[in-house]
């Protein structure tokens, strides 16, 4: 994983937020980053290959290119994605939320894929999550096993992978968050979309690319009573400022 220069210190961290045509949560994400979380949110246009010197990158939610063929399938080919992929491969931190997660899977930066919810219906709700690991750049501010409440809103959030991949990511501890019930149990009833092993979010092998279906950016200000999302961003902030340590 690429270590940021030590002593990035108290500088305001800059987060690039990619806008594809059909991205929806991009402006909300920039707002949360800039006005609530103490980052500078930097909009990145899909046709622009330049990352404008950002410290890390976020792929927001939405329906990029309408998500008509398969969610995330078309966005992967946007010019900006070449640079994002390069950034990720050289160890830069990349986080994908909802559609961003789908794009990262389609781009091969994360294992598995996201398909239609088993109910065949779009689902919007506030759900309980369990943080499986807090030694990632994205969850350092959480306790291990901590329970969070975050909103989800997606029609294609069912996480699938072939058996070998599933076994591998479980053994490697790449599953970062799972859907649980109010008691922290991974029950079937608590699984909003049919994801294998109640998986809500995963990291790549190297640990620098993270995707999840829940919308951390919509749970930072306490609107609708939700504020746990801020923890993911605070984790990234500390990780970057501590020179690559949680």
């Amino acid at each position: 994983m690429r270590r940021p220069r030590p002593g990035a210190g108290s500088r305001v961290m800059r987060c690039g937020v990619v806008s594809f045509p059909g991205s929806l949560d991009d402006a909300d994400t920039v707002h949360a980053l800039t006005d609530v979380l103490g980052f500078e949110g930097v909009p990145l246009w899909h046709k622009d290959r330049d990352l404008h010197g950002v410290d890390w990158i976020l792929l927001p939610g939405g329906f990029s290119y309408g998500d008509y063929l398969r969610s995330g399938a078309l966005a992967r080919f946007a010019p900006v994605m070449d640079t994002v992929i390069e950034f990720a491969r050289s160890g830069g931190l990349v986080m994908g939320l909802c559609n961003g997660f789908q794009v990262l899977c389609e781009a091969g930066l994360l294992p598995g894929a996201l398909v239609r919810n088993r109910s065949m219906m779009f689902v919007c709700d506030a759900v309980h999550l369990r943080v499986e690991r807090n030694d990632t750049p994205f969850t350092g501010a959480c306790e291990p096993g901590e329970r969070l409440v975050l909103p989800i809103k997606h029609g294609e959030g069912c996480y699938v992978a072939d058996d070998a991949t599933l076994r591998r990511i479980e053994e490697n501890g790449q599953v970062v968050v799972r859907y649980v019930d109010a008691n922290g149990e991974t029950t079937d009833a608590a699984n909003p979309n049919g994801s294998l092993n109640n998986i809500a979010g995963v990291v790549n092998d190297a640990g620098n690319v993270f995707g999840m279906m829940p919308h951390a950016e919509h749970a930072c200000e306490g609107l609708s009573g939700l504020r746990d999302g801020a923890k993911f961003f605070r984790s990234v902030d500390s990780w970057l400022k501590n020179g690559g340590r949680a």
Partner: protein
Amino acid sequence: MSYEPVDEQTALAHGLTKEEFAELCRGIGRVPNLVELGIASVMWSEHCSYKSSRAVLRDLPTEGPQVLQGPGENAGAVAIGDGLAAVFKIESHNHPSYIEPYQGAATGVGGIMRDVFTMGARPIANMNSLRFGSFDHPRTRYLVSGVVAGIGGYGNCVGVPTVGGEIYFDRGYNGNILVNAFTLGIVREDGIFRAEASGVGNPVLYVGSKTGRDGIHGASLLASSEFDDETEEKRPTVQVGDPFTEKLLIEACLELMEKDAIVAIQDMGAAGLTSSSVEMADRGQVGIRIDLDRVPKREARITPYEIMLSESQERMLIVARAGSEHVVQEVFQKWDLDAAVIGEVTDDRMLRVLAEGEEVVAMPIDPLANGAPVYERHFAPPAKLADQQRLSLGDVPPPGDYDRTLKQLLGSPNIASRRWVYQQYDQFVGGNTMVRPGSDAAVVRVKGTNKALAMSVDCNSRYCQLDPYVGAMTAVVESARNVVCAGAEPIGVTDCLNFGNPEKPEIMWQFREAIKGIRDACGALGLPVVSGNVSFYNETDGRAIPPTPTIAMVGLIEDVRHQCTQWFENDGDLVVLLGRTREELGGTEYLATIHGIEKGTPPWMDLAVEKAVQRVCLRAIREDLLVSAHDVSEGGLAVALAECCISGPGKPLGAEIDLEASIRPDAWLFGESQSRILVSLRSKQLTRLRELAADNEVPLSVLGTVRGSRLRAGRLIDADVQELRDLWSNALGDLMEGH
């Protein structure tokens, strides 16, 4: 395609009457050709011309100091301070949704959003009002799942949250469902755009999707006539929505509006290119010339007639400043959308349409836009009304088991939690949602200010069936009460008036009574109607739907810190009722569900009392006296209490309630007396609340306390709240799965 004058037979086939055709020929000074007839027939359709309703609608109050734009434009606009305005409107898409529920509902949402961003406003919230037949009708589940998925499929994909709505089931809608869609947007007061063409020589641009054969004659044949066996044949190519293109269109239009390049803009809704060009020219008292060869087309062989009448979605017509065409084109290119100059503004007050170099249409604008006859239709109360209103309570046995009755109600289609529906809608996108669906009104903050807007949509059509005057009044005040319960001051109304065939006297009577009701209620509450929509001909095989004048209310919260939700929050809080409970059971959900009776007169309405109750509640919220506030509506006090216990996001809370026994217990528990609000508060706030109530002469009764995990009311009800919640939350989903 011939450009010969048409005969009368062709005119009749286009839905015009003989007299109307004669009037049309007189108006344009000759007999029209087929393209011209097509254009005139849609402009003169009920849907576009309001020929049956116009005279009656004049009664509605539409003015007020806060009103920046009343009815007549694409949407209404109300000032909310800080130099901003709320722009909103509701519109029906009933017939298309019955034919193809997913696409019909989806394109309904798309259309209403275009009405709002056309005004320069960024859409920030959607709501919808839905009516379906009963669950024992074979098509109901199919229609419900299609419509709800379509609303979600479109709204979710354009990034506008759906934050509220209503859905009811009644066999009166078996053959004719209602899908009404509402959008609210925000705009700078000085950034409002209107659809008024001006500047002779200014270019007319077509932007958005290409034109196909979609929905030809949607407005005239589908929205302006009844369903019958022949509907299948009249069926136009169904319109398919493309929300992705709509999202790009929103961004492109709003970006363009910042650039001082355009004079007027209108979406191509019903009757597409025809109504947008004619209406824009008419408002600006100018003429317009368009060249169909330059219109972006999806299909090669599409005739001038079809192009003019197509209802392809996601298209707008723009009048730009001469010389700034390239600005428009640059912006649309950025968003990968078509933008083509297709004509110009002229000074001859004519609509001229060219195709392959030939002028195929040359008609004066004025008769097209304003020449349709205004009908004063006959009206008379329905013959069976007196019988329907007769209800003798002596014949209604009180229930033996009140616990069971409450549970039956909580699990019934019209009272059960609407979660199954709104779970399919993105409620968060936009990042402003403060109160999601599930409370009396949704609340959405206004970014960059300290304010928020609350909104609700309401109509009890059973009340309207039994007394359209009282029913419509109740729709207005209930909607206002919902918004007040969230801590907002109501600031404006938009209405969607869904009725049967206006050529029948009893339908016209219902319509007139409903308008009077809306007029009186709005008058009493000081509320302007700033936009709306009339949908007639909601009939199948001669049977009309129950009259359904749906009201959407928008309210302003001046300070986001003072707002309220409907659920109890703390053990030990007092439960207090504002308002008076009378012995009234007519038209209630209790009578219908438990006793199978849909008779009587709807609950009594005293507008002065209503106003006082709302004033007390709003003051109390602003003084931070209340923990929760919930409007008492369908299912009465017992259901409202249960909802306060179980509808919150946390663990359900119990309550202990004393029974006030001066009236029949079932009327006390399940009656739907109006002008009542159920609140909870810390006991130390009671004195001040009493003062407020006394000052306003509002009856106040302390009913009991929030406590434990059971809902107890006197000796009649004693139920575990978790059990009530499970029952209430799952009922609609279970019904949809056919359990």
